[in-house]
């Protein structure tokens, strides 16, 4: 429901009534075919928000060419007709007669069980603040504008040029923390969490466009705390991006060539001035006013940073507002992986109370009955696509269509501008029924992206979806032979002939469905495992929780408090009690998974426990085997009784150990074991943890001297607050870098002498300290490798379990039906672990919600008339899907049987069998051979 706002919300969790106001689009959605004629005729030009105001759009417009729904809309503020009843050029221009000026705002009330607020973010607008001179100097742009400049669909088609005079950019600078970590100028104390990363990305892409570009990034702390982010930071350094640790305060126009002049302090402490063609302000994120308004209407509290108020253990639940959930940038400055994870978590949290009414309002997609074409003579329909001019621009599509018409068994040939467009699908359906076609060849793009679309259309027109073959005349034809049109046309003919030959031999393969076991297995009894197990049980699914040790709780047992100061112990005990007492959860202590087989919906895992092995059938699996603290081999750890790891220090601190209670000087050393060549990743939680500990030490005894030696303080997002409070409390932060690490003298048992280089005074600085705390790295525990082998899961270079897609499927594995949560994925603080656990729960629920899932039809099939049980294929099958079975009624005679559920359709058996006794539907030997023959005819 686009162009719609929430006006008012009433009711309580489980039964909200929401009044919605839909603003008029002034375009009839059903009629508009997005041909763009109206925009061409519309006289009124307006700044295009999509291109950050860099480009222009018309009063009647579509947000961007690939917008969904792809329908035009009229901007009421700028439309001449709506303003003063004149013009109306678009009405005549529109071929479909879709313009309707008298559309009125419509109100609608809807009843829902829960609500999830994800109104998103607005980039900080640096205009009006003198020091950055954003709206003063043309060559000062925001990072989002740079994104548009670099994009092929942007105003300059990806060419980097100076906005002032269009001259190429030779030197470019990024200023970090514009509108973030800056209370006085921008009113935002928090760090937006994403600017460092997108600055690196944009710098790298800019260097792709102009390899010899000189790029400098001016930063306070380089915060690349996400998975694989540190590696990208290292790659940027290797690619020659220069990094300056200093905050540039003011910009002035350069004298001659219109560039920008700025001054900064080098790490030697020298004042230096430099000129750049382009300065990019890495603007932070903030809550847009519309979001704040929405929060008000939904009575959702916002914190001082105008982000939704939420608790550490219910990270997606709007505080004090049951039934209301928040996620994405509205809940805090998050990057895309974090937003997607939170979105899934919100889906889980929102659906938990409504478990009873699952499936109540949804309906299954129905298809018309399938026409049995087996008896019929093949009647092939060939649809040649122009794909705009992507194909027609190179290949002579008329000649191709004419050629196709003459091919054997071809009953109908048609050319379409966009075969994949929605309306052509309808056309396709009609043609199939009218011409009673029973085989379809689509000569267009790659089947990898568009085959599912056409299969849907075939199903919708009553044809078995497998009676289709696509001739890839675009990606492997017109696009790659643009200079040789005749050869491309010749090749297209061959490809079509091959497809027609194959499609004639295709037979309808019956859709295979298999039952989903309504139960789950959770591996790992830490916080992540507990939350996801409890969540799934609450949703009504029996869960088996496997914990290696004899106690539930995992790493959280050693944690003292969240970054917001909420005590961990209490919440952990309550979740453990809930799990152990839950009727649907079976806890297996001192147990581990020793073996597993099967696939989504039908896993069979073997759990090895104290009383031997038990077999568990489950539909989904969540891997939450956590991580462990790294035991450092440096800084005198283990040799000196006053050197502790962060977790050890926490224990001693809470127990009031004399060395801590009596201590006057404390030194924290950050990045011990992290961001090292052998572990090139940031453990994400140690900075916040050390800063919090330092504040507490200061609060207990203000006279204490507390030092934090850091490489980058990564109190990202709203954690910046803690860093600010630490500085106010007088904690001294000293920066060191890789090649001059702090050196120690350990000869005196009661005191450790720390020697470090002081950047401010530019001289060595000696600190005799009572206690030395090492912020050690979090490393994956060794169970990861074994679990990966059992479930055939990928492990990344650092040993953490590898998710399917960093951004779009952050908690899924590539293998369907298995999900990931907690430290096993990557080091993360408590509330992010809970979020990921809830997200895994939601993703698992999407599988368990179905009682049956359909397997794709590319499966191997035994041909009884040819197979004679010679068993050559049995051990070739990588999935052990082939067995030798006795034929009923003929004792002693055995034939090969293939378990369709286990078979993945790889075809290794077909390529081994010497008598065509087994074949993969859609890729049988005869079908491939027909293509070979057609190609060489």
């Amino acid at each position, binding site marked *: *429901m*686009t*162009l*719609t*706002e*929430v006006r008012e919300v009433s009711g309580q969790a*489980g*039964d*909200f009534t929401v009044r*919605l106001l839909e603003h008029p*689009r002034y375009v009839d959605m059903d009629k508009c075919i997005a041909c763009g004629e109206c925009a061409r005729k519309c006289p009124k030009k307006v700044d295009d928000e*999509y291109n*950050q105001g860099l480009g222009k759009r018309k009063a009647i417009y*579509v*947000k961007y060419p*690939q917008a*969904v*729904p792809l329908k035009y*809309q009229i901007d009421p503020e700028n439309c001449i007709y709506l303003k003063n009843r004149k013009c109306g050029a678009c009405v005549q221009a529109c071929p479909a007669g879709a313009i309707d000026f008298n559309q009125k705002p419509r109100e609608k009330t*809807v*009843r*829902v*069980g*829960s*609500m*999830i*607020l*994800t*109104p*998103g973010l607005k980039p900080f607008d640096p205009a009006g603040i003198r020091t950055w001179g954003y709206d003063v100097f043309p060559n000062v742009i925001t990072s989002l504008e740079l*994104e*548009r400049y670099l*994009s*092929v669909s942007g105003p300059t088609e*990806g060419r980097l040029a100076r906005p002032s005079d269009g001259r190429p950019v030779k030197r470019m600078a990024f200023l970090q923390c514009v509108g973030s970590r800056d209370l006085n100028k921008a009113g935002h104390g928090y760090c937006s969490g994403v600017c460092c990363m*997108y600055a690196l*990305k944009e710098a790298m*892409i800019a260097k792709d466009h102009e390899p010899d570009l000189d790029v400098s990034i001016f930063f306070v702390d380089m915060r690349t705390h996400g998975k694989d982010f540190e590696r*990208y930071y290292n790659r940027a350094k290797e690619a020659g991006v220069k990094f300056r640790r200093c905050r540039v305060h003011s910009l002035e126009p350069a004298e001659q060539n219109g560039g920008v002049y700025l001054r900064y302090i080098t790490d030697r402490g020298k004042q230096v001035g430099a000129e750049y063609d382009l300065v990019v302000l890495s603007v932070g994120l903030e809550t847009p006013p519309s979001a704040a308004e929405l929060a008000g209407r*939904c009575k959702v509290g916002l914190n001082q940073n105008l982000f939704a108020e939420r608790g550490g253990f219910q990270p997606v639940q709007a505080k004090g507002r049951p039934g209301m959930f928040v996620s*994405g*940038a509205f809940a805090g400055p998050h990057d*895309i992986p974090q*937003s*997607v994870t*939170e*979105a899934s978590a*919100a*889906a889980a949290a929102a*659906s938990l109370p*409504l478990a009873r009414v*699952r*499936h*109540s*309002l*949804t309906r299954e997609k129905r298809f018309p009955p399938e026409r049995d074409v087996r008896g019929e003579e093949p009647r092939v329909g060939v649809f040649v696509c122009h794909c705009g001019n992507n194909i027609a621009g190179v290949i002579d599509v008329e000649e191709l269509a004419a050629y196709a018409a003459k091919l054997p068994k071809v009953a109908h040939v048609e050319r379409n501008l966009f075969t994949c467009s929605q309306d052509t699908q309808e056309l396709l359906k009609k043609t199939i029924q009218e011409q009673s076609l029973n085989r379809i060849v689509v000569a267009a793009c790659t089947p990898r992206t568009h085959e599912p679309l056409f299969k849907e259309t075939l199903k919708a027109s009553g044809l078995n979806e497998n009676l289709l073959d696509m001739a890839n005349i675009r990606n492997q034809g017109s696009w790659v032979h643009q200079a040789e049109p005749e050869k491309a046309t010749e090749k297209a003919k061959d490809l079509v002939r091959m497809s027609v030959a194959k499609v004639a031999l295709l037979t309808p393969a019956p859709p295979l469905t298999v039952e989903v076991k309504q139960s789950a297995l959770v591996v790992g009894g830490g916080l992540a495992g507990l939350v996801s197990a409890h969540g799934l049980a609450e949703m009504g699914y029996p869960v088996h929780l496997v914990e290696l040790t004899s106690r539930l709780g995992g790493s959280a047992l050693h944690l003292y408090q969240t970054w917001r100061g909420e005590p961990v112990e209490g919440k952990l005990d309550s979740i453990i009690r809930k799990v152990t007492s839950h009727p649907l959860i079976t806890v297996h202590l001192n147990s581990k998974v020793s073996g597993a087989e099967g696939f989504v919906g039908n896993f069979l895992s073997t759990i090895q426990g104290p009383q031997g092995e038990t077999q568990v059938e489950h539909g989904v699996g969540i891997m939450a085997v956590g991580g462990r603290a790294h035991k450092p081999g440096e800084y005198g750890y283990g040799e000196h009784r006053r050197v502790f790891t962060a977790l050890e220090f926490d224990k001693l601190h809470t127990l009031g150990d004399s060395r801590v209670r009596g201590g006057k000087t404390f030194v924290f050393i950050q990045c011990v074991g992290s961001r090292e060549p052998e572990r090139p990743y940031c453990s994400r939680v140690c900075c916040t943890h050390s800063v919090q500990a330092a504040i507490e030490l200061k609060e207990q005894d203000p006279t204490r001297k507390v030092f934090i030696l850091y490489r980058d303080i990564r109190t990202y997002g709203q954690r910046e607050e803690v860093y600010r409070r630490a500085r106010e409390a007088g904690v001294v932060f000293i920066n060191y870098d890789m090649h001059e690490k702090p050196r120690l003298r350990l000869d005196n048992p009661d005191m450790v002498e720390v020697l470090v280089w002081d950047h401010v005074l530019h001289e060595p600085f000696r600190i005799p300290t009572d206690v030395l705390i090492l912020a050690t790295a979090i490393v994956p525990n060794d169970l990861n490798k074994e679990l990966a082998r059992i479930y055939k899961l990928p492990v990344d270079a650092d040993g953490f379990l590898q998710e399917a897609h960093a*951004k779009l499927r952050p908690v899924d594995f590539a293998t369907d039906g298995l999900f990931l949560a907690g430290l096993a994925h990557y080091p993360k603080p408590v509330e992010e672990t809970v979020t990921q656990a809830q997200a895994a729960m939601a*993703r698992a629920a*999407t599988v368990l*919600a179905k009682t049956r899932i359909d397997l794709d039809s590319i499966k191997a099939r035994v041909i009884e008339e040819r197979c004679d049980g010679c068993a050559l294929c049995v051990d070739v099958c990588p999935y052990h899907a082939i067995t030798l079975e006795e034929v009923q009624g003929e004792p002693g005679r055995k034939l090969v049987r293939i378990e369709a559920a286990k078979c993945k359709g790889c075809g290794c058996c077909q390529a081994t069998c010497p008598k065509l006794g087994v074949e993969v539907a859609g890729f049988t030997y005869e079908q491939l051979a027909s293509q070979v023959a057609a190609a060489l005819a």
Partner: protein
Amino acid sequence: MSQEMIGAVMVVGGGIAGMQAALDLADGGYYVYLVERSGAIGGAMAQLDKTFPTNDCSM
């Protein structure tokens, strides 16, 4: 009385977070109202040209 439960959820905001939540809920068996203020869903991510780490298009 346990008040009547509505098996539908409203997701306000059609950005990447809104879309993912809507999909998970729909697959999970709930009716979803996805409410978007602007003319099309996609949110801020649509404006990004390439996304880290694989740099494939963010469409």
